[in-house]
């Protein structure tokens, strides 16, 4: 009960921090819109009809990117906070508190990400509507898309926590983060739906959790036939796997820090 209240307090702190950083929201929102404008121009100049896929339209692709970028921008790069906590020894202070370090960090990130999902969602989806003049899927699907977006963001945060904790071994987490991010962009389908990938690469992407982070929620906005329940179920399954993995890494990193001094 005490832990739940404390975690709620951390989540509230995260929400307030994100709300206080108006310049950061404006900057992220501006970049998000710029990316949408560039991709809209690009898809409009691309002869999509030559793909011989009737379901691929510039509108659908733009909304697909609007959802994937929404998740990536909302998550941000919070792994740097964990990396800095370990590098500067601040984690020692956090470890003297009666709640788990990882739970507190993730609760705070969840609060920050929740605010950014709302703010950036409003900015990005309004921009996508203004650019395309339409919404490609029925309004009834949007609660499912929002939920899938939240689950995708949660998966990203779990991965970033694990990446940040890698600093317990190497002192820095940035190189690992950049590798992870490139894999996310390629195997998660940041810019293009995985259904357009060559079969081999698609099969490989489906074996990784990256598809559940970006492609799965965005596919709901791109493909009106995609089953929301199936997407959410797959995301929850991957979230469970990622949570277990992050917990293992957290445990190993804390053991190492407690052995060597924070």
């Amino acid at each position, binding site marked *: 009960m*005490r832990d739940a*209240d404390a975690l709620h*307090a*951390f989540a509230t702190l995260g929400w307030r921090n994100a709300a206080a950083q108006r310049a950061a929201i404006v900057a992220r929102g501006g970049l998000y819109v710029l990316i949408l404008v560039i991709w809209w121009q690009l898809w409009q100049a691309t002869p999509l009809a030559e793909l011989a896929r009737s379901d691929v339209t510039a509108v659908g692709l733009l909304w697909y990117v609007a959802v994937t970028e929404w998740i990536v921008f909302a998550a941000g790069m919070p792994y740097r906070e964990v990396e800095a906590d370990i590098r500067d020894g601040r984690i020692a202070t956090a470890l*003297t508190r*009666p709640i*788990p370090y990882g739970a507190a960090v993730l609760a705070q990130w969840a609060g920050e990400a929740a605010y950014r999902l709302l703010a950036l969602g409003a900015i990005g989806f309004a921009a996508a509507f203004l650019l395309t003049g339409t919404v490609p899927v029925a309004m009834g699907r949007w609660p499912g898309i929002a939920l899938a977006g939240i689950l995708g963001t949660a998966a990203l945060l779990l991965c970033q926590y694990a990446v940040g904790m890698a600093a317990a071994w190497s002192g820095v987490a940035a190189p690992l983060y950049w590798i992870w991010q490139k894999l996310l962009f390629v195997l998660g389908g940041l810019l293009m739906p995985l259904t357009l990938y060559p079969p081999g690469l698609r099969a490989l992407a489906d074996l990784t959790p990256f598809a559940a982070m970006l492609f799965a929620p965005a596919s709901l906005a791109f493909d009106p036939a995609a089953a929301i329940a199936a997407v959410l179920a797959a995301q929850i399954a991957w979230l469970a796997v990622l949570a277990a993995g992050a917990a293992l890494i957290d445990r190993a990193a804390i053991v190492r820090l407690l052995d060597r*001094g924070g």
Partner: protein
Amino acid sequence: MSAIRVEALSKSFRVRPAPGRGWARLRAALRPPPAIVVPAVRGVSFAIAPGERVAFIGPNGAGKSTTLKMLTGILHPTGGHAEVAGFVPWRERRRLAGRIGIVFGQRSQLWYQLPVRASFDLLARIYGIGRAAYGERAARLAAIFAIGDLLDRPVSALSLGQRLRCEIAAALLHAPSILLLDEPTIGLDVTAKAALRDHLNALSRDEGTTVLLTSHDTGDIERICERVIVIDHGSLLLDRPLAALRDAYLRRRMIVLVTEEEHAAIDLPGVAVAAREPHRLTLEVDTEVTPIERVVGAALTRHVVRDLVIENPPLEEVIKAIYRGRPEAAAGPGHA
């Protein structure tokens, strides 16, 4: 039952030697040299009773902070045993956290971007302090540490002294029975130091809080602690009450005599004149040669004494002597 019990506590670190430059660095990256085991704490044992105020001192690198980290559970020992408030710190770290307050003078436990009050609110929820108890406690600590007007200011906008007062108040919010302080007055001005020491004494007296502090400031030790544990090179050098420490390590005392006579004189072995002014004589007494009471007796017999003051040399001297490992060194030149 002891508040803190430490038995043969040891900690060693495995350290790889720093690689050289150029090819040596590349070779070291490809084939790391074997790690060296560096002992930081070697079989330290002591016990601290509830309500005791103990200074844990030693030169830089002596093992003070390493020991303190082990007592808070954030560092696992290589060997030995410890119990703090009945918990084994490295096995029950989170349960112990509710019973101890920790202040690392160099590290903040407050949230820099938040106002102090928001940090306190967050800590209250982390420690599960009830709303009413928290309100009462926060008000009391704000009064004790004179931080009422700082509560709505962001931590980042506070001076070091203001921040440290807030840090200690934050560490005490959950009413811990044991307070571990690592250099709590570092960087504070004289007034702030004095106020902080008074507050810590009052707290220990009123609430029976056990205090274990490390400090290089002998003023902290003299004004807060009643017992001193000295550690050096990871080993316990000494564990004594502060008064006994002075007696054991200081054979030199200063006596200031204010006399009716313009020129007083005391001629005893081991007694030297440190300063002479009209009606005032300052003597330096080697108490191993002539006990202090003999010198006082002689002064009272031979002169009309208006005032008499016996001064201890500064604790600084005691500590220097302990670190040097030669008690007589504290007596200074000419007395050894």
